């Protein structure tokens, strides 16, 4: 190994080192399983949204692809898991894998659409793909249940032992474990040279390709990966609620996940997780009396955030965290 390679490898290893707050975060997340029943349903939703936001972070935060239709993959995963459960096998893990495969396949196919054109074209194509799927799900009621949703899912026990109960403890454990495993994988990927090359593409595509980064192949790979993650999140929602409705494909869902990610800050993996926690808590408190209020506050938040500048918020949060870490 030459000198410069050693330095680069050391740099990567330093980036990838586990820090104390990270460990604390995950210990707390798993410790929440021991809470008395009552909050686990909400925690389950948080974990699912966190996984979904993590997926968006991979393409938005690292590769710089703005997507307004990420729900396409979430919904694909949800319907794949739901249909498999209804028609083939009630085993949740099988459903999870099939959902991941289905969403990844769709991601691979549609990734070639987002390679071309400007930000605007990408916005349109991602939005268009999600809308096509929404229309498709609506037009095929014999498969998807149409506007009534996919009903009659009976999800089998997890690993053949743990039944999904009414309080959502199993559901939370299942979602959290899935989130954790996929997070570890994502963390490994973004700290590898692959992740660095994605960031190079986001900063300056032309320069990245001049440095020998195969831009298109990297974008296809990360888009497919993110789609697989979103599919997993959709499968978790379908299985833990035993229900899939057209809402999984709606624009609102793509906007929600974008907002959650932006709250936490894109481009450092924990942004999606932190944002999901804040988002769900806000939603839970604000929308309890009227859904319109929630929409209003969410809109106001977005406008203010955009006017003040995202960088200041996420930069502030990151700076705070960096200070904590250094101590």
């Amino acid at each position, binding site marked *: 190994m030459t000198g410069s390679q050693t330095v680069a490898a050391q740099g990567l290893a330093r980036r990838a080192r586990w820090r104390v707050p990270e460990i604390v975060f995950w210990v707390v997340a798993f410790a929440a399983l021991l809470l008395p029943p009552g909050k686990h349903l909400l925690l389950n939703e948080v974990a699912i949204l966190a996984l979904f936001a993590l997926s968006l972070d991979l393409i938005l935060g690292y590769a710089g692809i703005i997507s307004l239709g990420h729900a396409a993959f979430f919904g694909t995963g949800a319907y794949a898991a739901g249909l498999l459960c209804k028609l083939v096998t009630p085993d949740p893990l099988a459903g999870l894998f099939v959902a991941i495969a289905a969403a990844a396949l769709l991601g691979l196919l549609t990734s070639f659409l987002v390679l071309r054109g400007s930000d605007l074209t990408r916005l349109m194509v991602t939005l268009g793909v999600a809308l096509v799927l929404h229309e498709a799900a609506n*037009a095929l009621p014999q498969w998807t249940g149409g506007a009534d949703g996919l009903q009659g899912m009976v999800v089998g026990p997890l690993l053949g032992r743990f039944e999904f109960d009414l309080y959502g403890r199993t559901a939370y454990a299942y979602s959290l474990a899935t989130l954790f495993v996929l997070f570890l994988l994502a963390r490994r990927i973004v700290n590898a040279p692959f992740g660095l090359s994605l960031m190079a593409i986001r900063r300056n595509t032309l320069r990245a390709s001049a440095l020998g980064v195969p831009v298109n192949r990297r974008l296809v790979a990360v888009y497919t990966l993110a789609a697989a993650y979103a599919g997993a999140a959709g499968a978790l929602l379908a299985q833990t609620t035993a229900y899939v409705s057209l809402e999984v494909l709606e624009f609102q869902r793509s*906007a929600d996940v974008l907002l959650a990610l932006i709250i936490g800050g894109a481009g450092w993996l924990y942004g999606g997780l932190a944002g999901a926690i804040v988002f769900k808590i806000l939603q839970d408190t604000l929308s309890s009396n009227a859904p319109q209020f929630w929409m209003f506050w969410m809109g106001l938040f977005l406008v203010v955030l*955009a006017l003040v500048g995202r960088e200041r918020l996420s930069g502030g949060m990151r700076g705070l965290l960096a200070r904590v870490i250094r101590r």
Partner: protein
Amino acid sequence: MATILFDGVAYGMLLFVLACGLAVTLGLMNFVNLAHGAFAMAGGYVTVILMDHWGVPFIACLPLAFAAAAALGFVLERTLYQHMYGRDHLDQVLFSIGLVFMAVAITDYLLGSSQRNIRLPDWLQGRREILGVNVGIYRSFLIVLCGALAVGLQAGLVRTRFGSRLRAAVDDARVARGLGIPVATVFAATFAMGSGLAGLGGALGVELLGLDPYFPLKFMIYFLIVVTVGGTSGIIGPFVASLLLGIADVAGKYYLSSALGGFVIYVVLIVVLLLRPNGLFARAR
């Protein structure tokens, strides 16, 4: 067949009036404004309220809808939008989605979530046989009015002093400013004009498109399609795209089932963007 073509053209013309403001802000000024539909909704509600509560005749409502939406657009441009020019696309997306959500929530809160309708005056209702084609009178009215607007706008953009100032400001704001063109004023006036036209389109569209608080979200994709498919070279591209979209949508919903017909426009969108990522009439740069 001819009737469907006719209805499609009328629908496309309406879409053009709704979207042409966006063609300028998004297409020419490169500002991703997803909230354009909110101005159309404002125009629509102004019409509904004026007609229902004050009994204002439909024709008189149209300029009022234009004026209200234009005023709203002007105020928002001066207070909020002008800070967002030249920012990251992601920031613009977040900002304008936020505006849409607020518009939806406020409208829902103030006016209720139900679908609103208007009663057209008698002389605009009904159908008539013209040159062997059975056409709706209101749709003919739309075609004439929107066609005149399209011609006027194109002439305004190409032939007037204001148009050339706008084109200069869009091409290079710094140089335009250096030449003494009041860029901020030009942008504000343009934005107000585009919002006003959206409001007018909203008023005209209550009959065809319906009106409820979710209007800006439901039709956002249509406006965006018009601009992306039409390209960013001016307003002829969006005009052609509107007609194409209108005809494809009406024909798709007629010949295929109404469920499958919904696909047609998205398929058109994706195919066009695949073949020509910058739209049908891309500007050579």
